[in-house]
């Protein structure tokens, strides 16, 4: 690819001290990050750009491509607003879109548990078909495995995808500059609350729907309009806060956020209040942030709104000044947003 000889860092990975993987390792927060940085990166990454957050970009015989993968283990499989199938398609579609690419072809790997109802599988497959059509991608290859009853949570799905890079310049945290505008494509917190309500049987009478949706089209419009998109990031687990912290730290910048500008739908707010959750850290599946030069901010908002996204400027990028961090404006000043160590749990205190 780029011809340099990478040096694999000799990080002394601690041998298993009896420590086991915890749920938090999959939460998208600090422990996930550590797992990647301290275990996977030393093992797999041959260049600094390998194993970056969303997808990989590279060139093959002049064709600029993006490649991404994602696995889906959501419980419950079916929830208001979607199911594991919709997530599986849109998740990889969005990872590719966040690279500034047009998603084209997806693979699907299914791990089914013995005893899983075929009627449910049909529902999931149907969702995937519809999601793929809506996103404009083709499922071109796949694999199916079955494990014994008790050895798998009903159904796990992995999707991988290939896309064509549309953005002329790289779309990555490294391109973010002080002065850039941070634009959020819509209200936050729907997916995480929808899942938690369904999974924990929280008994909300008014179901909150996941915001699971493909984001390829709005991204494409931005790029086609010539907006110099510096960085894109879809908000998944860990929420808006985690996505921005990662960008700030990878890009070595500071980000100032205006809490008042961040929209949270009333029922989502109500649910967060009851559960003691901070909406900034709640998962989303159909929202993204775009970091663009300040001069492009208004145009970006207009284009996204034209696509149906309730986009709004929620903050700006500033110089890191020694500490790349995300600061939130509050009543009493600003506070620094920290990476959650695990999945946010509802609290009673």
């Amino acid at each position, binding site marked *: 690819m780029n011809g340099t000889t990478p040096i694999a860092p000799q990080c002394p990975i*601690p041998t298993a*001290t009896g*420590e*086991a*993987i*915890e*749920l*938090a*390792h999959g939460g998208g927060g*600090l*422990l996930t*990050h*550590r*797992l990647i*940085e*301290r*275990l996977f990166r030393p093992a797999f990454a041959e260049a600094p750009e390998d194993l970056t957050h969303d997808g990989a970009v590279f060139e093959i015989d002049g064709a600029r491509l993006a490649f991404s993968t994602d696995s889906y283990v959501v419980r419950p499989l079916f929830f208001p607003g979607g199911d594991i199938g919709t997530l599986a398609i849109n998740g990889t579609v969005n990872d590719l879109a966040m690279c500034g690419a047009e998603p084209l072809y997806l693979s699907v790997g299914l791990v089914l548990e013995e005893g899983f109802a075929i009627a449910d599988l049909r529902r999931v497959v149907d969702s995937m078909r519809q999601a793929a059509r809506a996103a404009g991608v083709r499922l071109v290859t796949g694999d199916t495995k079955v494990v014994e009853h008790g050895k798998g949570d009903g159904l796990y799905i992995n999707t991988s995808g290939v896309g064509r890079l549309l953005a002329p310049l790289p779309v990555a945290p490294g391109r973010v500059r002080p002065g850039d505008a941070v634009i959020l494509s819509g209200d936050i917190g729907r997916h995480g609350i929808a899942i938690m309500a369904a999974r*924990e*049987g*929280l008994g909300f009478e008014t179901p909150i729907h996941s915001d699971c949706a493909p984001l390829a089209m709005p991204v494409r419009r931005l790029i086609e309009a010539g907006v110099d998109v510096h960085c894109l990031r879809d908000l998944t687990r860990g929420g808006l806060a985690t996505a921005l*912290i*990662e960008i700030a*730290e990878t890009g070595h910048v500071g980000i100032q956020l205006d809490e008042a500008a961040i929209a949270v739908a*009333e029922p989502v*707010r*109500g649910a967060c*209040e*009851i*559960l*003691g959750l*901070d909406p900034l850290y709640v998962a989303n599946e159909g929202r993204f942030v775009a970091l663009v030069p300040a001069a492009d901010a208004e145009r970006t908002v207009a284009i996204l709104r034209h696509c149906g996204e309730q986009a709004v400027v929620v903050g700006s990028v500033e110089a890191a000044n020694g*500490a*790349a*961090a995300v600061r939130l404006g*509050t*009543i*009493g*000043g*600003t*506070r*620094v947003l*920290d*990476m959650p*160590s*695990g999945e946010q*749990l*509802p*609290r*009673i*205190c």
Partner: protein
Amino acid sequence: MKYVDEFRDPAAARRCAEAIARIATRPWTIMEICGGQTHAIVRHGIDRMLPDGIALLHGPGCPVCVTPAGIIDAAIAIASRPEVTFCSFGDMLRVPGEGGSLLAAKARGADVRMVYSPLDALAIARAYPGRKIVFFAIGFETTAPTTAMAVLQAEREGLRNFSLLVSHVLVPPAIEALLGAPDNGVQGFLAAGHVCTVMGYWEYEPIARRYGIPIVVTGFEPLDLLQGLYLCIRQLEEGRAEVENQYSRSVQRDGNRTAQEVLTRVFAVQPQRWRGLGEIPASGLGLAPAYAGYDALLRFADVAVPPERHGECISGEILRGVKKPADCPAFGTRCTPEHPLGATMVSSEGACAAYYRYRRPRSTALAATGGTL
């Protein structure tokens, strides 16, 4: 949201903070004793709005933080039994005892479920008659009535597969223990608004008199906290030591009589160990003899509650307001939110955890030291 948004108005908050700055002529040290209040103060930056001389201490108002490590170890021992479904509030799942946390036990295969209410645990008991359902009953006087009602319902329905691991604590004895300590520097208190919603505030009147300390019953939104602080500082400036009720939309002097009656029926006051503080007489609730049959420690008689060990954690001094998190040699290095050593780092409301997340000078969140993966 009604009753929420109005009390978060930034302009009103600023005006209140300015009013505090106008009346405060001297340094004052005020303690709030409620994890929820600590959380709100730190989240909204309330303490940053106060003039420099006002020191706000975070007291032992987080039942999660002050639950003795031994009880958590007992919880894990019970939860690890194959026939047990262990139900707990979310807050307690990450709290480590000496032998790890309930979440870690779940990772090892224990059937640990997060519930939002003791009634959820009851529902699980009804749904799974073949399993033994144990509910982790922690919390202050606000939560104890909810536990009590679950016991009464279980009794009425004859639910034999339901029991409770009880660790309820009472606030006034803790305040007295703090004020009675020789190194006490606390000059005023913000009393916990939701505890007082249940218990009223008449219990605090003799305390205010005996120690000459103003106590203001305070709510949880930014405007509540600022007004509570204003009233407390005004008393201090005027040399008064009374109980005032800022949270009057929720709290009355007598509290909730129905809830108190149920508490008296189901629970008995007993001495209680507080993590980091030691044993405080008459500061805990245990099941009354008539309901002892629902005590998980009697049902699982071979599970013991290990005694508290004293390591390098200085939680006790921090909870009493004698030291600050930054004074602790382990802070941020051997003791972090991911690998907490003691009560105050354990819960996100704990003084050390709050300080760590919102205040400490740091390079990057992702490069935090401590722990392996």
